[in-house]
């Protein structure tokens, strides 16, 4: 039973340059931009599909097409059941109106009946945690309260199909947790969901299947860990062509990364580490044949899939690395872990120095949990010393230049 059918859909935006009648006379005044091109996918009833891809890949356009905010240029879209779209938290809020009035306004904009809002009103307000301020105009709300109330209204819709665009990026950690719990609740209740998020870890946790968009086209679709891995590889290598068929890379791989493990100073395996303490990462591999002039790389990703840091075996050894056939591991040692406290996803590749494409790409479920250690301000920590340097002030240059 399909809830969403998106068949061969394209969406073209006309980009107009120039003003008024003039642009009609000038050639090239109107340009076509295909935000979505020949995209086909289906979502089964009760299934949760994640949509990932770089900015401008066409994810949000797909959601706008599904929610009927705009119509496709060509193709066919079929949805069965009540659809609710959460494109922006607090859409339809009027600053002069009170929280209470806005719950009704926003709820009815999202397609809820007045009676339905009445019945859920107390739960919505409790969820948002703004009960004391509910009769105050929302222009006096803090941005956090505003967002919480906006999400609370939408979270209490009971649609058959829920479309969510990057709303989890708002609010504090506790509220995000609450949102994810609520979405999981809806999911268990059988709601079909479509998600856009840059938070790849949430995507992996929440979705049954993930689709990857690139420049308006759907280039991969499948199990979350696989597609997220493909995307991370794409981000790391900076091009999509090589990963269009992710399985190909693994198929003729002479060597494979089997796992990544972390070890403390005493070589004991750990999954947690603290900022500012020594840590080593081992990339375990198996090679069917010797790989000469190999390069092993380790990538550290943020939650939203950005490569934060990369370590390479060439930098480690300063020369060529020849991997013998069989199993083994390459260890990367860090005398000082520079990552901020948080959760990181870690991947690794094996490639030949002369080849552009990797022999194997590994993106498993390897996570590194970094706990607070050495206090860090800023994005990362780096080993450093300091000393007082006597008499090293600016020199007197006399009359100047």
């Amino acid at each position, binding site marked *: 039973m399909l809830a969403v059918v998106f068949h061969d859909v394209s969406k073209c*935006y*006309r980009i107009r340059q120039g003003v008024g009648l003039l642009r009609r006379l000038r050639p090239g005044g109107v340009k076509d931009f295909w935000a979505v091109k020949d995209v086909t996918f289906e979502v089964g009833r009760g299934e949760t599909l994640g949509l990932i891809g770089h900015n401008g890949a066409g994810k949000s356009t797909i959601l*706008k097409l599904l*929610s*009927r*905010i*705009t*119509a496709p240029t060509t193709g066919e879209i079929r949805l069965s059941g*009540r*659809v609710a*779209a959460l*494109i*922006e938290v607090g*859409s*339809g809020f*009027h600053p*002069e*109106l009170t929280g209470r*009035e806005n719950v*009704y*306004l926003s709820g*009815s*904009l*999202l*397609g*809820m*009946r*007045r009676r339905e809002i009445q019945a859920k009103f107390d739960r919505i307000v409790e969820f948002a945690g703004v009960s004391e301020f509910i009769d105050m105009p929302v222009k006096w709300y803090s941005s956090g309260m505003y967002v919480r109330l906006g999400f609370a209204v939408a979270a209490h819709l009971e649609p058959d199909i829920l479309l969510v665009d990057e709303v989890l990026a708002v609010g504090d950690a506790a509220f995000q947790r609450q949102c994810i719990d609520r979405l999981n609740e809806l999911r268990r209740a059988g709601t079909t969901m479509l998600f856009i998020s840059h938070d790849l870890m949430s995507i992996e946790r929440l979705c049954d299947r993930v689709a990857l968009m690139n420049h308006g086209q759907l280039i991969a679709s499948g199990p979350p860990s696989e597609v997220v891995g493909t995307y991370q590889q794409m981000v790391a290598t900076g091009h999509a062509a090589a990963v269009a068929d992710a399985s190909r890379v693994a198929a003729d791989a002479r060597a494979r990364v089997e796992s990544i493990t972390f070890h403390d100073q005493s070589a004991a395996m750990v999954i947690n580490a603290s900022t500012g303490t020594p840590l080593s990462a081992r990339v375990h591999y198996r090679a069917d044949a010797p790989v000469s002039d190999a390069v092993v790389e380790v990538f550290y990703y943020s939650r939203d899939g950005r490569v934060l840091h990369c370590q390479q075996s060439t930098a480690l050894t300063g020369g060529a690395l020849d991997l013998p056939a069989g199993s083994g591991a390459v260890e990367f040692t860090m005398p000082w872990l520079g990552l901020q406290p948080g959760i990181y996803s870690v991947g690794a590749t094996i490639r030949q120095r002369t080849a552009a494409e990797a022999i194997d790409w590994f993106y498993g479920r390897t996570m590194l949990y970094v706990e607070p250690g050495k206090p860090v301000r800023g994005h990362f920590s780096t080993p450093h010393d300091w000393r007082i340097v006597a008499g090293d002030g600016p020199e007197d240059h006399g009359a100047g230049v």
Partner: protein
Amino acid sequence: MSYGDLLRTLSRHRINVRYRQTLLGVAWAVLQPLLLMLIFAVVFSRLARIPSEGAPYPLFAYAALLPWTCFSTAVTNATGSLVTHTQLITKVYFPREILPITYIVAALFDFTLGLAALAGLITWYDVPITLAALWLIPLVALLAAWILAVSLALSALQVRWRDVGVALPIGVQILLFVSPVIYPLDVVPASWRAVYLLNPMAGIIHSFRDVLLRGQIPDAVPFAFAVGVTAAALPLAYVYFKRIEATMADVV
């Protein structure tokens, strides 16, 4: 999905917000046509000596200003309604005609208050009320239908060409002078009638005076013109609006 509740909630919101932070509040709904009536009475009746078909000129003017103010307010607000709600249109789906309609509902609300004032004026001038006054119900429906047709067409056009919003105030001014608000329909030469009556406001205003001031059922020809033009325009406007609606979010 039910959007009836959205229409109600948004319309109530329009009425609430309109006179918020004003000293006189909803009294403005009555004051606007009343003030115009006073000016018209002085300028056009006392100074220009314009005939008023036997009725007291203030009453004659007010009976026309009531539907006219409703028309001009509703059309002016409704035309801009789509472009002033870009935020909503690009973020949420709902049938877009709800936006212009809410402004029409708000104008009809004001109209109802103005009608109460008219009842007061009629009593004051001791004009007899007959059963013909019941014609007000279909007349208001006709007025609403014509306003809807104009609002749908203009608001959709405005999405694409902002010229509409710029030209609108002067357009409404011109319409005021080619509708029998200031003067009676009788002064329009017979040879011009057919063209003149293509503006449904002419037939509507004339019929308002028929049923309220003269206690008779609407004059058949002006009324038929108004009904005919509205009946032709409304479906066309709706179809055009729906065609623009599909990709409204891309251009608004």
